[in-house]
């Protein structure tokens, strides 16, 4: 039989070590709990904004989840009577309208006859556009046609983008109608 001879010092050392080990294992540290809190639910702290899908005329409701910086997630709006929370494959991608790397975030200008896009600043863009619109509209404006008041210009056309949302298209259409633009189109194709 193994005889364990412990003097007082050894006995104290052993009991101390055992108590310390137990304290770490049993009391202070719950591995599972730490693991659980390290992964927070993706949309736990997001702001939710309802919007209308921009891609076609059906008008599905979408909830946009955002944090301080970016769009975190988008999902069909369950309260929308149009889609009742569902979405098609295209509507599901709408988050990329904001987050895509391919998105153009600076004004680009292509001069008449040129085949190159050049980056311009907003001031130059606003000024040039308003000048040219005014010039073209003044030159081409038709007040009356066949005895009917028409107040239109056929020299300007507007092409809306599929990624414009409901409010943007409203404003765009309002402004173009105000200018007398009749060629008012949208490129949406589903």
């Amino acid at each position, binding site marked *: 039989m193994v005889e364990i*001879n412990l003097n007082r010092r050894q006995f104290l050392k052993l009991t101390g070590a055992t108590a310390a080990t137990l304290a770490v294992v049993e009391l202070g540290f719950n591995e599972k709990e730490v693991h659980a809190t390290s992964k927070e639910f993706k949309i736990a702290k997001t702001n939710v904004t309802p919007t209308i899908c921009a891609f076609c005329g059906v008008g599905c409701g979408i909830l946009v989840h955002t944090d301080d910086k970016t769009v975190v997630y988008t999902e069909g709006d369950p309260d929308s009577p149009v889609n009742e929370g569902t979405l098609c494959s295209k509507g599901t991608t709408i988050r990329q309208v904001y987050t895509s790397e391919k998105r153009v975030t600076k004004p680009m200008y292509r001069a008449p006859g040129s085949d190159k896009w050049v980056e311009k600043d907003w001031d130059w863009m606003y000024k040039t556009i308003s000048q040219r619109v005014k010039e073209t509209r003044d030159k081409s404006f038709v007040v009356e046609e066949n005895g009917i008041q028409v107040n239109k210009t056929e020299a300007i056309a507007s092409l809306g983008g599929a990624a414009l949302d409901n409010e943007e298209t409203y404003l765009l259409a309002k402004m173009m109608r105000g200018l007398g633009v009749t060629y008012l189109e949208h490129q949406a194709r589903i």
Partner: protein
Amino acid sequence: MATEYVKYVDVTKCDGCRACMVACKNWNDLPAEPQDFLGTMQSHANVSADTWNVLTFVEHENSEGKLDYLFRHSSCYHCTDAACEKVCPENAISYTDFGTVVIDQDTCVGCGYCVQNCPFDVISLKTYKDKNGDEYRKAHKCTMCTDRLEEGLQPACVTTCHTEAMEFGEKEAMIKKAEKRVQEIKDRYPNANVYNPKGVGGTHTIYVLTEKPSVYGMPENPKVPTSAVLWKDYAQPIGKAMVGGVAMALAGAFVANKFFDKKNNQENRDGGGSHE
């Protein structure tokens, strides 16, 4: 045990829009994987580490000699007896209370046993690089959005499905629904059946199919590989017991040795030990 849930997929209602694929990428933040044209409508040949579900398109000549165009949402089946869970040497794969099968990314060492043993071929490895430039791998597959389930939401693919081809609900109710649906479509599809294979103890994604599973490229009788059963249920416990035994013996020997030595040393120092 909490209630088990099942994802019910009725392929007769699927219109092949692929919203489930996109919704999966959207929720799980998975990057796009550009593919070459496969010659059919199908976008990806199979699921991968970054594409957890794929809509398969099968052109099939039915018994009347007419073309059937078959769509199917295809992802992890979440087996009741999951081969991947059995073979994982790190116990990184586990069952949840919902009946889903999930891989713990922190524990996974990327050995690939689960990839080889999955009867449905739905697990894939992805290679990453750490900050030293060394490569390491992790296994990925559909989680059935277990993080969403925990918060009372349904999986992203089910939520987005606009034809009600997919539903999520309690296991018994969904199985009943599937059986009822098969009876409804028997006139139109005489080969209609419920896919809930018994060889893996049933699955937590069940299908209403219009044709035999093999037509859809699914295994007719998937089974947990015998080697996996042997490994998990026999070899591993015995191995662990042996490792434990050896460890205990080593520890015992160490302790005994130490104190014996002390005793001897002390005796030596006292000069009480015999010299010859």
